Structures are given as structure tokens and as C-alpha cells.
């Protein structure tokens, strides 16, 4: 049995909303698991059930070999970092960190030792006497993490902790969280709706949609091999391009091009997915893209254009190229770098 085990966990709210649907998941000790999905998909609910802040309607949650369904949140030995940090506004930083330890009846000297260690680790030693209102966003974030670390819990739970920070700080804190987790080695679950955050932080990733785990795997597995239309569209930036097409006898026919010898026995209406970075410019390519907009990022360009009736088709070109509005580019798809999904079910068919 793994460290944290969720078995057929279901959450139905009193008003009948089904937030999480028979979800099963195993997380290993020391692993950094990320739940990613659009808002309202049930990822936070799942996390809060692990924390004990939401009742579990059906199913079982085991932590370290012990069933914790009915265990009080304070007894579960989990620590959580909230989106708005939920720092105790009337206590200084020291007491914010020490409060949980005091409630556990730990003696003063040990508390002081632990708080100082955690503060040193997070570089907040200088602010221990300040109130949270006197700290910047990044410092508050650190205090919130310090409060989790100081208790030395079995599992860290992060509920979108970076979404209140500005873009630059977010990237910096993302890095710090990852480093910290590797250093401390605590099993962690991180909830986010930001796919870049998810990709960069996760050891393993669970893509959640409508209360169901759509796909579970390492970030690169999911990126390379999305199992459904939803996952394909959600992971990857800029988003994958989708085209309507028909698949018949291993031949795919889209608006104005065909791909032969496709490894699939499926026949019928499909959606073809191509990542912007999997296109290359060639002469006499499959796709003719009429350029409408170019976003120059320096390292590369994002080219948006039209293929016949399909708008906002995106192609990622190397940064040293100069492409202008009105150009027509001839593009090929890199070998086998396309994804075909059943149009009605959204399942991958190639």
C-alpha cells in the first residue's frame, strides 16, 4: 500500500452537486503530486477531503496505513497552505508558526528551536516579531509555508498558494516551493489551475475535469501522450490546435489536406490535434497558414493565422525568423506528432 491512498472517493454536496466522482489515486511517500484542472472541477474539494475540511460522502482515504475518513483534521497530521495564506492577523510571525505546536503541548524550548529552524530555512528570521499585515506578498507566502513546515507533518497540502502573487514572484516562489519540497522531502499535494505551474512542480500530475481524473502521469508523459481531448487542450502552452476531420480506412481528411497510413482502426468524425511547436516550415507543406498576428517573444514567435475556415491556428516558429502579417506559410507536421480524438467522446484514437 502506498503512502496516501484514495479509494472510490466521492463527494456529493447537500444540494446534490457532485463535486468528486469515485476517484481513486495512490501517492507515494515523498512524491510531489499536482492536481490540475479548470476552476470548479473538484480539485480543491479533493484536497480538502484529504485535509479533513470536507466530509467524504463515499469511499476511503488511507494515510500512512491508517483510515482517516473519520479522523479530525487536527489529528490527521496534515498541513495546508491556503490561497489567501490565512495567516493569523493578530499574531506576529513567531506566534503564527508556534501556534500549532503550542496546541500540541510541546514545551517552549522545543517550539523556539523548531520555529527558528523553519524561519532560517525560509529566510524569514528577520520578520519573526512582525505582524502579517506588515509583510509583502512573498513574505506572507513564506510564513504560510513555515507554518506548515514547522509542524513536520506527514503531508503538505497546497491550495493554489501562488495565485495571489504577481507573475514574477509567482515564478520565483514556484521554484522555491519545489526546492523546499525536495529538501524537506515531505509528500505534497499541490492544487492549481495553471498548467505551467503544474508541469514545472509535479513529480506526477493528475488532470481533473468534472470531478474525474482524466489522466494521471508524469508531466512529460501527459504532454507527449494525452489520452483525451480535454487533457490535450489543457496541458501545453500555447494551446494545442484543433481541427475537425474525418477518419476513414486509416486515412485522415481535414479541410484541405490528408494524412495517410494512420495507426487507428477508428472510422468516423474526429478532431485532429496539433501542437504549435510540432509544426515545421517546408516547401509544399500540408498546411497553408495565412498569417494574421505575430507575437514576438524573443526566443520564439507565436504566429496566429487562418487555414481556410479555421481561425486562430497557432504556429511556434524560431525567434530569429521574421514573419509579417499577410505572409502565407507552408507548414508540415513533425512525424507522428499529431493526436486524433473521437469527436463525440473526446477519447484518443491513434
Amino acid at each position, binding site marked *: 500500500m502506498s503512502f496516501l491512498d484514495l479509494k472510490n472517493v466521492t463527494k456529493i454536496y447537500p444540494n446534490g452537486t457532485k463535486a468528486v466522482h469515485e476517484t481513486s489515486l495512490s501517492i507515494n511517500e515523498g512524491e510531489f503530486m499536482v492536481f490540475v484542472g479548470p476552476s470548479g472541477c473538484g480539485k480543491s474539494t479533493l484536497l480538502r477531503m484529504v*485535509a*479533513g*475540511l470536507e466530509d467524504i460522502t463515499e469511499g476511503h482515504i488511507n494515510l500512512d496505513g491508517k483510515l482517516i475518513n473519520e479522523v479530525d*483534521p*487536527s489529528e490527521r497530521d*496534515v*498541513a*495546508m497552505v*491556503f*490561497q*489567501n495564506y*490565512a495567516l*493569523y*492577523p*493578530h499574531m506576529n510571525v513567531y506566534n503564527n508558526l508556534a*501556534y*500549532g505546536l503550542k*496546541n*500540541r503541548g510541546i514545551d517552549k524550548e522545543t517550539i523556539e528551536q523548531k520555529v527558528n529552524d523553519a524561519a532560517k530555512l525560509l529566510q524569514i528570521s528577520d520578520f519573526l516579531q512582525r*505582524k502579517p*499585515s506588515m509583510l509583502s506578498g512573498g513574505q506572507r507566502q513564506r510564513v504560510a509555508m513555515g*507554518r506548515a513546515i514547522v*509542524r513536520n507533518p506527514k503531508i503538505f497540502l497546497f491550495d493554489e498558494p501562488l495565485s495571489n502573487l504577481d507573475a514574477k514572484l509567482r515564478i520565483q516562489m514556484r521554484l522555491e516551493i519545489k526546492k523546499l519540497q525536495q529538501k524537506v522531502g515531505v509528500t505534497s499535494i499541490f492544487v492549481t489551475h495553471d498548467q505551467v505551474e503544474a508541469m514545472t512542480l509535479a513529480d506526477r500530475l493528475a488532470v481533473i475535469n468534472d470531478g474525474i481524473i482524466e489522466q494521471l502521469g508524469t508531466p512529460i508523459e501527459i504532454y507527449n501522450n494525452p489520452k483525451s481531448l480535454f487533457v490535450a487542450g489543457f496541458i501545453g502552452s500555447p494551446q494545442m490546435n484543433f481541427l475537425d476531420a474525418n477518419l476513414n480506412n486509416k486515412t485522415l481528411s481535414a479541410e484541405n489536406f490528408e494524412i495517410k497510413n494512420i495507426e487507428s482502426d477508428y472510422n468516423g468524425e474526429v478532431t485532429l490535434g496539433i501542437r504549435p511547436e510540432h509544426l515545421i516550415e517546408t516547401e509544399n507543406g500540408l498546411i497553408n497558414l495565412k498569417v494574421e498576428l505575430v507575437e514576438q517573444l524573443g526566443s520564439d514567435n507565436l504566429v496566429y493565422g487562418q487555414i481556410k475556415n479555421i481561425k486562430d491556428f497557432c504556429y511556434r516558429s524560431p525567434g530569429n525568423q521574421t514573419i509579417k502579417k499577410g505572409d502565407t506559410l507552408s507548414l508540415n507536421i513533425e512525424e507522428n506528432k499529431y493526436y486524433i480524438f473521437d469527436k463525440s467522446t473526446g477519447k484518443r484514437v491513434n
Partner: protein
Amino acid sequence: MKIKPLQIVAHIILIIGVLLMVLPIWISFASSTHENVSILTEGMRFTLGEQFSRNYNEVLNEKGGWSEEVTAAKMFINSFIMALGIATLKVAISAMSAYALVYYRFKLAVPIFWLIFITLLVPLEVRIFPSYKIVSDLGLTNSYTGLILPLVASATATFFFRQFYKTIPDELLESAKLDGANAWSFFIDFLVPLSKTMIAAMFIFMFVYGYSQYLWPLIMTTAEEYWTVVMGMKIIYTESYEGVALPRTAERFAYIILSMIPPVLVVVFLQKWFIKGLIQTEK
């Protein structure tokens, strides 16, 4: 800096307001330092007289009442005890009942809250007979308990605390839960310190409310040793009207001035907290 006409008008209005508030108090104080004769012949005074220590000394130490047993000083103490008890218990009880209403999600929380709120429509004066009956059946007449207890429930304060607790984010409770706080320690460690300024404000209002109670102590107390200041104001110098002596206006004014001191002290002392709370928004 140029002064705009609008500012002048605003200041005039403010000055008039200040005068309206302060002048009566000043007249009372000035008059309380004169001799009774001169007030009787020349009316109220704007200037200070020479009888300050004599009048005030007399007010504080003279025994009054029908049996000549109670002094003004004793009545000040009684009123202070009563107001302090009422204010403290009112704040404590309403903070706790608001806590229950907001954080314990039992089914009837909302109807119960409205039931509490409706009691605002039934002030003590309306239910004074049943209240008296209960207190006298319990044998609490002529006691501090009897003076305080019937007045300690407060719908207003419960309402204010409830509204305040509702603004505290849920994450704070959840975070505290994960940190091992139980229901009691969440109240003591979080809600009480967070609502410090609220408590101070409520305490001031309730203290003044308790201090200025008139009808209830009047009905409740037959023993003079439990008389309160507001009652005394009416009773303590009545004999002068019936006898041949002059009306003791100066002493009455002195008494009024003295009776204002305890509530003013409470306000002055707690105002520090008030202002602190306004400057440091901690939420």
C-alpha cells in the same frame, strides 16, 4: 493657505455643535460652585464661584434618603458595580451567542437569531412586571445580582458580533483547525483578539446603558444601600422642597457633575483601543 467660504461655514456649524454639547455641562459646573442663595436670586451662572470644595464635600459625604443612611459616594459605587456587571456580562454573553450562531451550523440558527433580534422590540420597561416577579421569586431583590442579571442579554450586541464574525474568512477557521485549535481555543485565541475594538465599543455602549438605568433599580431596591446614582438624583435632596430650607440647587448640580465622571472615564480609557483599532487594520 486660502480658506474657502465653505470651510468657514462648516467650522461655524461644528462650533455651534460643540457649544451645544459643552455649554450645559459648563453651566452646571459653574453653578455648582456657587451658594444656593445666589443661584436662587440671580439664576444660573457662567462664572466660577467660591463654594466648590464645600458643595462637593457635602454632596459626597452627606447622608441622605428617608432613613439618612446612604451617601452619594455609596450610590456612585453601586451604579459603577451595576454598570460594570451589565457591560461585562452583556459583552461576554452576546459574543458567545454570536459565536454559536455563526460557527455552529445547526438547523435553527437563523430563526433563533431572529428570535433574539425580535427581543429588541420588548425592552425592559415593557416586561417589567414579569421580570420583577421572577427576580423577587428568586429572592434577588435588594442585591447586585438582582440589579444586573435581568439586563445582561443583549440583542444589539449579539447582532453586531454576529455581523463581525461573518466577515472573518473561513480559511482562518480551517487553518486553525488544522493547527489543532478546538472550539473554545478558536474563540479565545482568534475571535476575541480580532474583535478587540468591537468589544471596546460594545463595552462603552453597554456601560452607559447600565449606568443610566432608572426604572429597574427604582423598582428592584427597597434598601437604600442599593440605590443608584440616577435614582438618587431624584430622591436624595427631596426633603429640601418640603421643609423651610432653600432648594439645594448648587448641590444638585455638583451631584450631576460627579455622576458624569464614571462613564466619561470609561469612554476616555477605552477610546485608546478604539483609535488603535481604527489605525491598525489587521484584517
